[in-house]
């Protein structure tokens, strides 16, 4: 059995205890809800995109340490990036979580930084959905900004 310490790295627990960018953004920022049907967790992503750049991003909702910390780390990482950069970044992350099938489109040179700590989640397949919840919701929110 993989050790629990692979899952609960210090940086993850830090983001869980002290989440960054928690809160809401008023319209015209878009907001998008996601939920994990297995455990009941839900998350809401607020996204302010202007001129193709993520100006601000916040999140609310309830979830386990993995979903909360993963989302918190994600918000830190994407703020200030262009939409294209964010999309490539999400692909790179999901590839780490072994969710993208072909890796042709994944830019392996992208550095995930702290987020690499989430790699241990892969050993606990049920938790992968927790780790990716915020990211998938971000993609949905991005789509809405493009409508």
């Amino acid at each position, binding site marked *: *059995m993989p050790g629990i310490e692979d899952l609960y790295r210090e940086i993850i*627990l830090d983001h869980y205890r002290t989440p960054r960018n928690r809160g809401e953004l008023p319209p015209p920022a878009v907001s998008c809800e996601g939920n994990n049907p297995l*455990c009941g967790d839900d998350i809401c992503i607020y996204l302010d995109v202007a001129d193709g750049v993520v100006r601000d991003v916040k999140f609310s909702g309830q979830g*386990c340490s*993995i979903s909360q910390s993963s989302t918190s780390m994600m918000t830190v990482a994407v703020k200030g990036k262009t939409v294209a950069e964010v999309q490539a970044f999400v692909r790179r992350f999901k590839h780490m979580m072994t969710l993208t099938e072909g890796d042709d489109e994944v830019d392996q040179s992208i550095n995930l930084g702290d987020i690499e700590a989430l790699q241990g989640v892969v050993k606990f397949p049920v*938790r992968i959905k927790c780790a990716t919840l915020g990211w998938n919701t971000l993609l949905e929110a991005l789509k809405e900004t493009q409508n």
Partner: protein
Amino acid sequence: MVGTNTAFDSAVIRRDFPLLAKEIDGKPLVYLDSANTSQKPNIVIDTMAKFMRESYAPINRSAYTLAANATELFENARNAVAKFINSNNSREIIFTKNATEALNLIVNSWGRANLQRGDVVLLTHMEHHANIVPWQMLQQERGIELRWVPLTSDFQLDLSSLESLLTGVKVFSFTSMSNVLGTINPVEKLCAAAHAAGALAIVDACQSVPHAPTDVQAWGADFAMFSSHKMCGPSGLGVLWGREEILQAMPPYLGGGNMISEVRLDGFTCAELPAKFEAGTPAIAEVVGLGAAVEYLSSVGMANIRQHEIATSSYVLEMLTSRFGDDITIHGPRNPELRGATFSFAFRGIHPHDLSQVLDQSNVCVRAGHHCAKPLMKIIGANATARASFYLYNTTADADALADALDSASDIF
């Protein structure tokens, strides 16, 4: 025989369940997820394997000896199930793929034939999705109205306005025991109230049939359903019980082989009960396996199992409270006589998902999540809970292992 075995010892019973002998990293398995699905005793596994090795054949359709014998084993199991819940006769026992299908069968057949726009169905706030979503689907299709019995602050059904809630109701469908709270509902009383209001009484008996003696006639119910896999039986099988005259009057549910009497290009006629509701090839080996499970449970004694679970509940409630005090919140009744041994809880603000993951390090298996009862979760103010559910094979040592593992969870968070 129900209730005759007084030498009940869960530590001995445990040995009948091969998976519970399993050790992982030198520690025994503490399986506390039986409200979800139960482990299987050797007798069930062996009966199924033996049946497939020695007696497997089509049932109902073929005349040769092998098939006649298989049919007999299959129908014997149906009779055993009928007796187990004190059904009037075995034509009232319909095999489905799970309890969920049984509820859908009622809604699709009886419901479509009898409920029109504006008709009211009464449910409760503690229902499993299986007893909610099928009705919501009929609501979308037909515009029926759903009404809900609320809860009291001590996790019982609030029956103070039951009579007025039942006014004009066509169906009252409720669980015999909550799979989240452990609350045992007064089934006889609820059936009587339904009938007094002219409503049909449907009992979701998934959480009680495996754990206590069942007498559908004493209940006075019209329908009840339960799952083989929660009562030591195989997966892939559920049971719908219904009163014969109601089943008789219902239109068919799934169409195909076995459920017909005549088929012509321009139409068909239905077979007699129970075939009418069992289209296609049934779960042959699984039904035979359920027969073995029912025999096994009867030999242990359902009354003994109920007594054991009352004792377990007493122990668990006292032990957890004395060890953790206010650090643990148990969402459910305090009185062991009014509940089953299923405990949903919150612990020191640790998210249930994280909790279950950490407990798993000690081989303690609990479920974390909404337990297919999202409306109830919202009402008790939780997105998710951890749930430890005990069965005949769980000992106080399992409860202690749970508590020890909870202690270790605090070290991480």
